[in-house]
């Protein structure tokens, strides 16, 4: 090891370790400020509805009520978190305007002197809603006549004008004709809540110099700052975000949801405002991992080589897309697995439904692809009559192989990783698998394959 490395190879004490074990680490919620107000949300009790009216009269009479915010108070009410990296269109509302698209969608923000007063006022806001038909299944959402969740007439996120993210290599249909075996599978996964032990929240504090300091537990500090600046139509330098101390995130705290409205509340009242999710909001309103449905059709030669793979995936984005279009792109890039397959076709759809919006969670669309693909690999092994190790070794990427998205594999390590894994679990591999490496194939065109 190079002598000038001071940290690599050393055990270094974490800078926040002592704070954590003594309870001195300051999470956002451990702070409080004189005159701090509390914000609570009036949320849609219905999955899909038209908003006819909002009556605040009784809420305003609650002792401790300070003010309410509705859509018209938000300078730029329509946004998309990924707009910062060029993703379009803007499609999510900070506060709902004429329609709610999922149960729990924010409609009115109530600001009050105490949390209890805010909750009481929330319970006294009367909503006049006209229920609309709702859709909860990705394939039903794509059928003609399905209730439309978006404002652009269909229920898919559009990728450069296409309703799905597409990956194409070779000719799958021709290869299916030649295949000795066809193996098909459909795989469903449920939405999963990241469930950090600390719920999502922030405190926005007006400063004497006209700036706002926002203490937040976001996982995406600058994303939050920039989106807040856009939503509130203020220059970024009026916002100072303080973060980095996150009581668990796992993807659950990358959406910009609490900061813009809390900062707006601080602007309108000129007082510090705290907005923190309750545990039930964290579970029922904050984004989850998407539910996925993944169809796989594989064509396999007699000796176990996969010669064609066709994948059709649907991610349930819920009512708004948040980070799901990006997760889906990563999914599409990985949906053929770490295997060298000469003919691949992937269609991956990001579908809007009337469910709780979904977003990032560990693995970002790839975890679900891996789950489906590895179960599929076991099915293939069983059909061809080879063991599950062999089927993976003979199909594994090697350096120089073309990936479906037209990138050459340059750092393949699957074979070596599986060899190490076999050793760790005490599985004795046959000699031919033990002798394999990720070095480029040398035998003939296509490595002697299709």
């Amino acid at each position, binding site marked *: 090891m190079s002598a000038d490395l001071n940290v690599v190879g050393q055990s270094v004490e974490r800078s926040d370790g002592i704070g*954590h*074990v*003594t*309870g001195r680490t300051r999470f956002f*919620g451990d702070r409080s400020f004189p005159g701090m107000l509390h914000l609570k949300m009036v949320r849609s009790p219905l999955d899909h509805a038209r908003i006819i009216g909002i009556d605040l009269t009784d809420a305003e009479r609650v002792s401790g009520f300070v003010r309410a915010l509705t859509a018209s108070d938000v300078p730029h009410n329509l946004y998309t978190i990924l707009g910062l990296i060029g993703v379009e269109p803007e499609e999510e509302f900070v506060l709902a305007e004429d329609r709610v698209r999922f149960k729990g969608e924010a409609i009115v923000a109530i600001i009050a002197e105490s949390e209890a007063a805010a909750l009481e006022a929330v319970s006294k806001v009367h909503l006049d809603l006209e229920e609309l038909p709702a859709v909860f299944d990705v394939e039903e959402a794509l059928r003609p006549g399905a209730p439309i969740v978006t404002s652009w007439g269909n229920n898919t996120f559009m990728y450069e004008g296409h309703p799905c993210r597409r990956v194409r290599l070779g000719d799958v249909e021709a290869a299916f004709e030649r295949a000795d075996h066809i193996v098909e599978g459909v795989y469903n996964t449920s939405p999963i809540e990241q469930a950090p*032990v*600390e719920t999502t929240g922030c405190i926005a504090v007006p400063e004497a110099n006209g700036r706002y300091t926002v203490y937040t537990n976001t996982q995406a500090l600058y994303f939050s700052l920039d989106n807040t600046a856009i939503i509130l139509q203020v220059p970024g330098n009026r916002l100072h975000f303080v973060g980095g101390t*996150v*009581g668990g995130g796992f993807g659950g705290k990358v959406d910009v949801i609490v900061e813009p409205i809390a900062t707006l509340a601080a602007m309108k009242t000129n007082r510090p405002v705290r907005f923190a999710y*309750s545990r039930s909001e964290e579970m029922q309103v904050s984004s989850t991992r998407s539910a996925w449905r993944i169809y796989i059709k594989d064509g396999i030669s007699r000796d176990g080589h996969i010669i064609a793979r066709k994948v059709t995936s649907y991610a349930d984005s819920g009512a708004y897309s948040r980070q799901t279009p990006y997760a889906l792109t990563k999914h599409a890039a990985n949906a053929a697995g770490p295997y060298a397959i000469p003919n691949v076709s992937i269609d991956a759809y990001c579908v809007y439904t009337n469910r709780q919006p979904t977003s990032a969670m560990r693995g970002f669309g790839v975890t679900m692809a891996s789950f489906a693909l590895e179960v599929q690999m076991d099915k293939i092994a069983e059909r061809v009559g080879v063991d599950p190790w062999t089927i993976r070794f003979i199909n594994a990427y090697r350096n120089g192989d073309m990936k479906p998205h037209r990138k050459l594999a340059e750092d393949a390590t699957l074979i070596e990783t599986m060899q190490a894994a076999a050793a760790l679990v005490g599985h004795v591999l046959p000699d031919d698998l033990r002798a394999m490496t990720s070095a480029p194939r040398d035998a003939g065109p296509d490595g002697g394959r299709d």
Partner: protein
Amino acid sequence: MASRIVTFDLGGREVEVMVRPMTTLQSVLRNQLGFTATKDGCRQGGCGSCTVLVNGQPMLSCLLPVEDVAGQRVTTLESITPAEGLHPIQQAFLDAHASQCGYCTPGMVMVSKALLDHDPAPTDDAIRHALTGNICRCTGYRPIVTAVHSAAEAVHDAADAMRGSAGERAR
């Protein structure tokens, strides 16, 4: 309903607070007294992050009306942290990487303290049983169980050392 004054012992000092009926001990600790080591992951008895000791027994402070601890002895993480250095349980959590985000850690340390106070050499099962009410989403629990084991050993060794030096002095 009228507020009333409640007095209790917090880490060896008497505190007096004015509360409305049904105010939780958690809320008094965090919001009135600024003792924020006690966390609030759910406020509904589900996560254990708010665990404190009442007369040495672990309790969920989010479910405990502060009136119920009137005249009782309340111990929080702040009061077991020594003026210098760390309590052996804290040191063990640090050494075993039993704390990642740190949000569950105060509750974990407090239940571990209660366990080791009445069972200085707990079995693996006893440790796991003691931790069942506390959720950790980061560590996967194994480093926490390891930390409690090594804390038990450290407490034991320290006691031995004390006995040893006391014996030396006697001779």
